[in-house]
Each structure stands twice: as structure tokens, then as C-alpha cells.
């Protein structure tokens, strides 16, 4: 198979461990004087957006940042709990750039690009250095050195953390760097703004249309480059661990303006989330994967066992992950752990009222820690209560905020009874297709962080999204953006005397007005339908279709049905949605209408992508393609490619393929046994 001519990944030549360093030192640069006349729009203020915006402003570019929340500090990166990977090898346990590279490619089930992933592993160490220099309070040992923990899919301890609030601390670090630039006048901040479209002129991205969410004013913003750092699209499932406002609108509008969408069906279902408690449920809450360091997952050996978990004796418990995957045990990758939980529940062994949950139990390690602490304190013959008390303190120190969160939501005390958990939609590996420079198929338009498809293949390992977001923003885009902008500098000087050059016209260019009119018409359309059903109700129905038919397990019949159902839902939406209030005011319902309209279209593409991929890989599990023991069955001969979809018109896409080449890693059946 050869890659489509429309997809040039631009991976540099040379040995894998020299590609990036060589490229970085030979790419075109933009001189400081020119940087001041180049404007960069950064949409999104999460780890990817904030780090990119701060760094580009430090370099001298004129930067504008957009986010829909009231402050850039509230981007959903704030909610990341468990940690961030880096190949520091501080624990001296055999970690290295190569090993992180290898784990990530394997974890992604051999569906990610070698060149990108190696670069990610390479810059991972710099991220930790940068964050610590900013004053990010990562966890420390008593000797003052940084502490590490383990995450799924790896056998080394390379995860850095700040209790269960790693994302918060890293984001506040990037936010402070961003605010420093705001204070210095190098960044203009546009909070409570929603990007509604990309403006392209002669095929290049030249700016965006954004709505001021407070006044409803429609605004035109010019930029020599536009960076979409707008996060993932897990909310297409309605229920997910994403924030309520997380959306696909920016990426989707870009897609409709020519940016190909890569691997839309690759979604990650996280194994450990708090189960759904009723129809009112508006979102799901993650219980960090780090808990699997100390929590053991089990279900009763007997079906429909209604005893209290603490009353079920050890020998009547099935620690199914330890049983099925002795080498990795509770720390198998997420896709494997999620499917295993679903398998047990489907087979009738689930627990709790809904029977759609398994136990995550800390009793064993509470005792283990208690004994160690007692020994440290020189307590001889400590009582069982004393051991438990000491053990709980250790657990509290490591996961206190997560345990509190669990108790808030469920009303149960996880220090006393095991947590009940079930898989939930969490992360989207798919996203806008980008090349090695992080540029989409639209020149001048970039995608960073979760919004792009790049580094995680078909399944992301825990603690590597924070790493990728910050790698993209702090250490990749500052170099790769110059490749394009240095061309812009030449063009600008060639067009210096041209009266109607884009640099002179900026937002006065007619394309801006055209895009503005289109988006204004769309908003008026929502308000004029005056139907009978709320936006929320359409979102819920879409989510249900997606979860049932394009969720943890997929098959041809279900996907085919889903496509029909989603098309019908789209028609109904445009006939019968009820959006109240005005365009010229703060109107959350109107905001949501736009987001749901885009999710409906995306949902259809996800199902089409899932249907076309006749194999199982990572988070994409096609029931038709499994081994005798239920493990995923990949088909490297036919599907070792990135599926990049080009939008043609409603319900109509063209598939382009980027072949994946493995020169350094021998592609193999993934095994965690």
C-alpha cells in the first residue's frame, strides 16, 4: 500500500534517534524583527494551547488566545488526575527514551507513527524540567527528589504527579506562563469566546470567526497561522469524563473547510470511572488510573452475588485481571481492562444495583502499607486496627482527593468499602490529521494536543496525553511553525507593494465577511426553528446511539444501523430543535445547539470509520475480529494505515490512507500476559 498523495507526513530522513535533533537544527527560522509582524491565533488554553501561546509570545510572535470558559485556567486539562510520563529514569529501573517510545507504540497497538512518537519520548524530559522551573509542585520524596508512580501498559515507574491533581498543577504552570505574557502585552486574551469557523483564503488559513459569548457579537480575527488546541470530542457520547463544554466545533468546522479528520473511531474507554447512577446523569467522573497501583480489581466468583463486598471471602473473589494477565495484572492498558470489565458484567458477574460495575479494592494494600509504616515507626506487634489506620494514612496521602470525590458522588466511604467502577468514554485518539510539523491539510492551520490524531495510535497509555499536549506546545510547535511562517515572511516581502495583499486587508478581506455571514445565518437558523425538543435531548439521544453501537464493542450491523439513526436524528434536529433567547446576549443554550449540531455530524463519520476498519486494534474492537480467547485481532496486512477522511458534503466523505511504516520496532501481536 502506498500513502495517498494528499498525505505527506513529512517525517525527516535519517535514523530515528537523530530525526528530530537534526530537523530542529536545520529548519528555517524567522528572525526576531519579522516575528513581531507575524500574528498567531491560538484557539484553546489547555496544556497544548497555553504552553504554545506562552512560548510563541516569548519568542516574539504576536499572539491571541481564545477559550470558551471565563478564564484560560479552566480548560479541561485542569481535570487530569493521575500523572505525566517522562523518560527521566530517575528510578534507575531501566527506563530510556527508546523504552518510552516502544511502550507508546505498543500501547497504541501499532497504529501510531514512529517518527512522532520518538520525538515525543525525546522531549518528555524537558517538560518536567520546564514545569518544575515554573514552580509546579510535583510530588517529592523525603530526600527532596521527585517522586514517581506506575501507570498501565508499562513496567517502569516514569509517571510524575501532584497527588491526584497533576493536570491542575501543570495547567496552572502553563497558565501562569501565559498570564505573564498577557501582563507584558505580548498575548491578547479572548476568554468567553467560541471559535465558529476558520477563514481560508486561497487555500490557506488566515483567521477565524468567533462569537463573544457575553455580548453575542460575531468577530473576525486575522492570523498568519491558526493553532487549534481545542481538546477532544468524547462528549459525542453525551456521557464522558470530559467537561460539559468540551466540544468538537472548532475541529469540525476546520474539517469542513478542508482539514482531514484522522482515525475518528479511535476512542478510549477508561476502565475506572464512577458508574452511572440514573437518567439524570450529566457527566461521568474518572477515578484515576493511578489507583490501579494500589487497588485490586475483582468481581464475585458467583453470579448475582448480593453479599456486601466485605462479606465475600478471599477465595470467592475473581481477580480477573490478575488471572488473565499475570505479567501486567491490574496494570494492563486501558482498552484491555475496559473490555475485561464489560466481559465480566455482560456474563452476569457485575456488582451494585445496576450490575454494571466491578470492585476496585484497596484493603490489601492498606494493610501492606500499614505494616511498612509500623516498621518505619518501630512499632512492635502493632494491632490490626493500628495497621489499618497507618495504611489508610498512606492511601490518603496518595489519593486523598480522589477518595473524597468518590464519597461526594456516591455517598460511600472508599476507605471502608471497595469502590464500584465501570468503564466510561474518556479520551479521543482520533482528531485532525497533522504532519510532523503539526500542520493539518490546510496550510497555516495546525492542531495540537488532544485535537490532533498524532501520537497515540489506536489506544493511549495513561499519563501520556499531558505529555503530548505540553510537548506539542512547549517544544514542537515553536520550531515547526517557523517552517511555514518563514515562507510567509518571503511572501510578505514579495507582496509589500501590493495594495490588496492579505497583510494589508486582514479582516477586511471579503472572505472574512462571507464566513461571518455564514455563521450569523447559522445562529439565526437555530433560533428560528422554534421546534419542540431541547438541544439537551438531542445530545442525549446521540450519546445513546454512539455508546450502544460505536462504544466498547462494535459490529457491522450495529454500525450500519447507527449511521441511519444518526442521519434521521440530524434531520429531526434541524426541524424540531427548540433554542430560546436571543443571538445578541449571553445564551448557553444557543452555544450548545451549535456544538450538538457538529457532534451529530461527527458521530456519523465515527461510525463510518469504525465500519470500514475491519479489524480490532486498541480501543477499536470489532466483534467480528477477535481471537478465540476474546483478545483483539489486528489485521496489519490490510489496515496498517491512518484513515484520513476528507469532507465532501453532508454524509459524504472520501477516505485517504497514510501507510504506517515500522523501521525500528518489530510489529507484533500485543500481549500483556
Amino acid at each position: 500500500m502506498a500513502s495517498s498523495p494528499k498525505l505527506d507526513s513529512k517525517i525527516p530522513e535519517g535514523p530515528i534517534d537523530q530525526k528530530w535533533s537534526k530537523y530542529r537544527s536545520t529548519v528555517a527560522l524567522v528572525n526576531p524583527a519579522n516575528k513581531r509582524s507575524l500574528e498567531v491565533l491560538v484557539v484553546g488554553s489547555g496544556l497544548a494551547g497555553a504552553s504554545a501561546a506562552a512560548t510563541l509570545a516569548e519568542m516574539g510572535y504576536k499572539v491571541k488566545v481564545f477559550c470558551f470558559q471565563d478564564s484560560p485556567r479552566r480548560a479541561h486539562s485542569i481535570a487530569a488526575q493521575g500523572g505525566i510520563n517522562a523518560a527521566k529514569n530517575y528510578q534507575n529501573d531501566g527506563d530510556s527514551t527508546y523504552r518510552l517510545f516502544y511502550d507508546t507504540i505498543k500501547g497504541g497497538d501499532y497504529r501510531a507513527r514512529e517518527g512522532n512518537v520518538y520525538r515525543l519520548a525525546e522531549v518528555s524530559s524537558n517538560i518536567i524540567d520546564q514545569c518544575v522551573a515554573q514552580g509546579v509542585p510535583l510530588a517529592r520524596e523525603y530526600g527532596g527528589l521527585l517522586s514517581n508512580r506506575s501507570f498501565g501498559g508499562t513496567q517502569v515507574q516514569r509517571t510524575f504527579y501532584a497527588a491526584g491533581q497533576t493536570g491542575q498543577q501543570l495547567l496552572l504552570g502553563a497558565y501562569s506562563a501565559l498570564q505573564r505574557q498577557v501582563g507584558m502585552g505580548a498575548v491578547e486574551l479572548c476568554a468567553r469566546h467560541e471559535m465558529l469557523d476558520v477563514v481560508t483564503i486561497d487555500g490557506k488559513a488566515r483567521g477565524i470567526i468567533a462569537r463573544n459569548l457575553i455580548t453575542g457579537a460575531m468577530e473576525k480575527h486575522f492570523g498568519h497561522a491558526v493553532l487549534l488546541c481545542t481538546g477532544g470530542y468524547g462528549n459525542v457520547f453525551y456521557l464522558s469524563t470530559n467537561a460539559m463544554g468540551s466540544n468538537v466545533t472548532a475541529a469540525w468546522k476546520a474539517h469542513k473547510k478542508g482539514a482531514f479528520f484522522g482515525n475518528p473511531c479511535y476512542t478510549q474507554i477508561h476502565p475506572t470511572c464512577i458508574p452511572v447512577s440514573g437518567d439524570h446523569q450529566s457527566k461521568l467522573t474518572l477515578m484515576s488510573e493511578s489507583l490501579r497501583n494500589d487497588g485490586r480489581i475483582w468481581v464475585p466468583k458467583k453470579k448475582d452475588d448480593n453479599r456486601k463486598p466485605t462479606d465475600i471471602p478471599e477465595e470467592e473473589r475473581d481477580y480477573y485481571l490478575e488471572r488473565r494477565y499475570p505479567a501486567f495484572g491490574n496494570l494492563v492498558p486501558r482498552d484491555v481492562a475496559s473490555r475485561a470489565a464489560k466481559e465480566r458484567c455482560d456474563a452476569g458477574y457485575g456488582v451494585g444495583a445496576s450490575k454494571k460495575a466491578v470492585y476496585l479494592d484497596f484493603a490489601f494494600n492498606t494493610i501492606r502499607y500499614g505494616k511498612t509504616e509500623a516498621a518505619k515507626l518501630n512499632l512492635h506487634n502493632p494491632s490490626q486496627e493500628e495497621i489499618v489506620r497507618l495504611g489508610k494514612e498512606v492511601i490518603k496521602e496518595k489519593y486523598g482527593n480522589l477518595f473524597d470525590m468518590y464519597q461526594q458522588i456516591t455517598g460511600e466511604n472508599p476507605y471502608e468499602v471497595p469502590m464500584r467502577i465501570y468503564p466510561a468514554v474518556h479520551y479521543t485518539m482520533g482528531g485532525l490529521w497533522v504532519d510532523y510539523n503539526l500542520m493539518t491539510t490546510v496550510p497555516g492551520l495546525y492542531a495540537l494536543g488532544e485535537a490532533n490524531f498524532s501520537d497515540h495510535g489506536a489506544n493511549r497509555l495513561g499519563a501520556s496525553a499531558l505529555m503530548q499536549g505540553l510537548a506539542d506546545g512547549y517544544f514542537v510547535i515553536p520550531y515547526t511553525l517557523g517552517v511555514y511562517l518563514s515562507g510567509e515572511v518571503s511572501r510578505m516581502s514579495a507582496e509589500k507593494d501590493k495594495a490588496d495583499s492579505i497583510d494589508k486587508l486582514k479582516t477586511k478581506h471579503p472572505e472574512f465577511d462571507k464566513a461571518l455571514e455564514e455563521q450569523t445565518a447559522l445562529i439565526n437558523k437555530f433560533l428560528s426553528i422554534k421546534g419542540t425538543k431541547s438541544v439537551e435531548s438531542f445530545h442525549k439521544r446521540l450519546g445513546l446511539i454512539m455508546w450502544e453501537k460505536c462504544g466498547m464493542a462494535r459490529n457491522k450491523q450495529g454500525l450500519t444501523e447507527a449511521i441511519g439513526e444518526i442521519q434521521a436524528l440530524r434531520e429531526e434536529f434541524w426541524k424540531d430543535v427548540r433554542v430560546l433567547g436571543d443571538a445578541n446576549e449571553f445564551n448557553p443554550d444557543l452555544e450548545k445547539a451549535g456544538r450538538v449540531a457538529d457532534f451529530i455530524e461527527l458521530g456519523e463519520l465515527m461510525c463510518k470509520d469504525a465500519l470500514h476498519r475491519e479489524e480490532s486494534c486498541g480501543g477499536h474492537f470489532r466483534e467480528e475480529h477477535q481471537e478465540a480467547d476474546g483478545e483483539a485481532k489486528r489485521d496489519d496486512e490490510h489496515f496498517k494505515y491512518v484513515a484520513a477522511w476528507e469532507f465532501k458534503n453532508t454524509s459524504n466523505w472520501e477516505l485517504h490512507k497514510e501507510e504506517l511504516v515500522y523501521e525500528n520496532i518489530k510489529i507484533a501481536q500485543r500481549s500483556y500476559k
Partner: protein
Amino acid sequence: MGSGNGELLNLTLKVWRQKNSKAKGSFETHQLKGISTDMSFLEMFDVLNEQLIHEGKEAIAFDHDCREGICGMCSMYINGRPHGPKGAVTTCQLHMRSFKNNDTIVVEPWRSVAFPVIKDLVVDRSAFDRIVASGGYVSVNTGNAKDANNILIPKPAADDAFAAAACIGCGACVATCKNGSAMLFVSAKVSQLALLPQGQVERKERVLKMVQQMDEEGFGNCTNTGACEAECPKEISLENIARMNREMIGASLK
């Protein structure tokens, strides 16, 4: 299957409605039936909003995003207390099991000169961003950093810095303070960086600049009532204010 266990509540809600920053607002009363005690407070608002839309009335605007107590976006003043009757939780983490059948619940926006109302329960907290922009950072450009383990930080200092850094910027401390003071918020950031070796170089300058910006934004003076600590969902300690006061003295003396 929480301790709420499917119990259902009937409630009366008195909610502040205000069309925009210039309009005069007023309370609006709504009846809600069959609210499950397993719902979160915001899910109860979702139900109310669906009911309103069904009746052809505009939904109540309120700020929220993560719904797990970390983004700091949610901000309701419930029965006279920011984030409601339970200590140490945000509005989004408050569950209906904290209420009883036939309760009347009064919900208002944060009220403070420095946080003007945008609409209904939504206020403008951008003053906080400007305070951070005035000095709440370590001046280190990307790429300048040394190996992270070259900076040794004693665990107690790291833990204290972390505890201060846990502030979510929600503004409950300001909303509850009779003076509308932002001291708890500002002192948390000042403390975090004053406790760490990375923050030393700019230590004096930082506190002066941040306090100056705080005053310019129209926040009131601190008279040590301690209401902020009591209402802070992240239990940010008053010790931070004491530390900031010492920092101020140290910085003014030069």
C-alpha cells in the same frame, strides 16, 4: 446506589434572574418535583432548565464546566453560602442528599463589586486573571530550565506549596467576605511561590505587584473575619494570609 438510594424530593427554588449586567434583577420561584437525592445540585438545575425550555421560557444561565470540583467555574450562592451548606465542596460536587423534602432553596450569584453579574447566576471573575498576570508566576522562558532534580525541595515545603496551589480560583472567598476581599486567593499564589526555591528571585516584587493589582480591581480590605477559609471548597488555609502579610512587610522594608 449512593446513600441517597433513590429517594425523591419536592423542592421550591428561588433563583436570581438578571437579563444582563445593566438590568435590575429579581428572584423567580419554581417548583420541582421528584428530584433524586443521587443528583448533583447542577443536575437538579439541568432538570429545572429542561422544564423551563419545555414551558417555552429561557433557561437559567449558570457557570459550570468540569462538574468534578476542579475547574472552579461553578459559582452559586446557595441559602446564603457560596457553594452551599456543605464544607469543602464546590457547587458541582454538592449532591441533593444534602437537602430534605419540601426544602426551599435560594440561589444567587456571587455578589461583589469586583465580580459584576453578566447574566442570572453568571459573574465576571476576570479580575483574578489580571492579578495573576501582574506577578503570579516565575519568569522562566521555555527551554531555560535545568534538570528538575537539580532543585531539591524538602517534602514539607513541597507539600505546603501544593496545598496552597490547590486553589481553583472560584471566588467563593470573595463572595463570602463582607469586605469583598480577595486576600485568600492572592495569598495562596504568593505563598506557593514564596515557599519554593524557584520563587525566591522575584519574591518581593511579586507580592507588591499582586497586591497592588488586587487593590486596583476594587477588592476590599481584609479584616481577618476568617469567613473565606470556612467557605473555601479547597480548604485553603488562613495561614497563607498571615504569610502574605509577612511577605508584604518583608518586601516593603526591602
